[in-house]
């Protein structure tokens, strides 16, 4: 009786000692990517709102960019979920029959609300530009221009008034939307933490601190990614300026000056959120150790033995402590900043990994372990979707989308 059956999870799960028969690592790499990507969305939006709402003028240049970038990240927050679902075509049911006692059901509503806010905010920021483009392209007859004009025409939603009074209204609308957007962004990510924190069956996940920890690390990773992308873009501009006018030209020093200025200011916010995130995470571990509930024996085994390198060396050491020192030591250079930012992004990724995979590293029996082996070379749809290449697809997509959006909504002009 040989049947070719694929048990979801069996491919990448290795069991050790006493594990219930049905236990596998059901939530794998895509569920690591999911809070990571949502975190980047929320973080990017919060960064842009710091300028729009709290008038942090020093972040003006970052604000437009990070707003558009958060739009590019938005569909990608949903992508890992779709890749993870066993029945992806039924995903829309979350909007049709939402069962609101589930944290995932909130996803449909919060995510849609958030998408609408981001889209509206971008509309208000760029409406004037859309109108101007429609006007500028009016007489042109080429195919590309006709299509572009059509797109801009639709994007104006028929609102052509760009008088000073009208644009003043746009600005006020942006401020209001950004203000509403901050709690929604936090909620969007807080509930991602809630999905894990509310699973009472999982000893590692169940913690009321989980949503807050998720929000803090989300903002950290979002700011870090925006800063990093900003640096890459500015370096590219500088490189082009050098090619065009030579190394000693004034424009090169101006670009470098602006870049350093924006970065040193943004890194202050980054440090603040980083401290908050680490404090909460450590509080969580200390509390678990001190109260030493039934699950502590197995949790200790996982944290201090099985996953010690992943948690304390890679996440806290390399991902938190080292960049913390790099950012605090005087005389920050762009190069050192880049190293620190990459490490921070890595650290937050490891945090997601250690929560999602670490939470499934031990059995519900508290008497056995499960080991996760990430599928590298895809040999079936499932090992692609929930393997290295699926994760890479998710990681690359926002940049492709950002590039596409920039064809229509130039977030980097006049920077």
């Amino acid at each position, binding site marked *: 009786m*040989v049947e070719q059956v694929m048990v979801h999870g069996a491919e990448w799960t290795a069991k050790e000692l006493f594990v*219930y028969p*049905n236990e596998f690592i059901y939530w794998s790499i895509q569920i690591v990517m999911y809070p990571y990507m949502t975190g980047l969305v929320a973080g990017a939006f919060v960064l842009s709102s710091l300028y729009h709402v709290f008038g942090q003028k020093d972040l003006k240049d970052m604000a437009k960019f990070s707003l558009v970038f958060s739009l590019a990240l938005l569909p990608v927050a949903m992508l890992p979920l779709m890749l993870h679902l*066993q029945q992806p075509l039924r995903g829309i049911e979350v909007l049709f029959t939402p069962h609101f006692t*589930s944290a995932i059901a909130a996803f449909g509503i919060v995510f849609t609300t958030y998408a609408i806010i981001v889209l509206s905010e971008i509309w208000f920021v760029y409406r004037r530009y859309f109108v101007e483009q429609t006007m500028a392209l009016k007489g042109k007859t080429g195919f590309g221009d006709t299509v572009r004009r059509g797109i801009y025409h639709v994007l104006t939603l028929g609102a052509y008034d760009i008088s000073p009074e009208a644009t003043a209204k746009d600005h006020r609308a942006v401020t209001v939307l950004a203000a509403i957007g901050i709690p929604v962004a936090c909620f969007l990510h807080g509930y991602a933490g809630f999905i894990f924190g509310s699973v009472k069956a999982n000893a590692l996940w169940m913690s009321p601190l989980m949503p807050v920890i998720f929000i803090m690390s989300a903002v950290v990773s979002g700011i870090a990614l925006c800063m990093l992308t900003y640096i890459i873009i500015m370096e590219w501009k500088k490189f082009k300026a050098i090619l065009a006018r030579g190394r000693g030209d004034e424009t090169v020093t101006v670009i470098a000056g602006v870049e350093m200025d924006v970065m040193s200011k943004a890194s202050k916010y980054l440090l603040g959120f980083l401290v908050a995130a680490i404090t909460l995470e450590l509080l969580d571990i200390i509390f678990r150790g001190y109260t030493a509930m039934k699950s502590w024996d197995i949790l200790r085994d996982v944290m201090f033995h099985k996953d010690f390198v992943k948690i304390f060396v890679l996440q806290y050491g390399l991902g938190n402590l080292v960049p913390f020192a790099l950012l605090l030591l005087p005389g920050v250079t762009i190069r050192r900043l880049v190293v620190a930012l990459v490490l921070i992004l890595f650290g937050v990724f490891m945090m997601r990994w250690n929560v999602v995979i670490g939470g499934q590293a031990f059995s519900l*029996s508290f008497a056995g372990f499960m080991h996760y082996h990430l599928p590298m070379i895809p040999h079936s749809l499932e090992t692609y979707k929930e393997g290295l290449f699926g994760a890479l697809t998710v990681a690359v997509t926002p940049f492709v989308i950002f590039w596409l959006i920039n064809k229509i909504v130039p977030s980097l002009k006049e920077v």
Partner: protein
Amino acid sequence: MTCSRRTFLKNAVKGAIAGALPVAAFRLLSPAQARSAVEDASVRWGFLVDTAKCVGCGMCVKACKLENEIPYDAPVTRTWVERYVVTRDGRTHADSPMGARDGFTDRKIHGGEAIDPSEIVKAFFVPKLCNQCDKPSCVQVCPVGATYATGDGIVLVDRSWCIGCGHCIMACPYGVRFFHPVHKVAEKCNFCYHRITKGMKPACVEACPFGARHICNLKDHDDPVTRIILNERVAILKDEYGTKPNVFYLGLDHNVR
């Protein structure tokens, strides 16, 4: 021109909302419909496991897999039997190879050395299955209403509606849920709902030659099995999660996980 089009669109939108809202949003709260579908209120299914009678033959697991069309060679199962061996040094050795589909025929645990009988202080077998909880945490977390408790207390999965997110699998403290290898949706024990609603016993109960498994109606106090649950000292698994399970155990040891 634009003005009239805008007015038209606006009215169309308003119309669509007015039309869609009452039917779509309020329909799911209609009390008449709610009452009509509730199951017979005189039944609440329960289960009794007598661990002292179980010999670990695994006939229940085999019968369950065949009855409920769970691929026989897949390492997942709706019910399983665990073996616990406590040795003189105070250690507990536990296993359930293939969910005990082929029973326990070997003294080795986890492929290690066979445990010498003189080292054993106690050994026993514990059958596990879905607890059909009063407060099923798996149902609470389903985002789309694809898993639910029926009026007679059985937790079912709607195979045509489940999106396969796995949240219910994560939320069950007993590890009874898994993805069906063929249907690609969440799968679990339902006390053989198709059998018990026809007056038959679940396949595992029928297959057990030793009387280690019993089904009962907890609302019928004349049911001999219900009387045991009411009168004897029975235990439940993982009380601390507050799920209020309905599978009761006679002779449950503290080592049972």
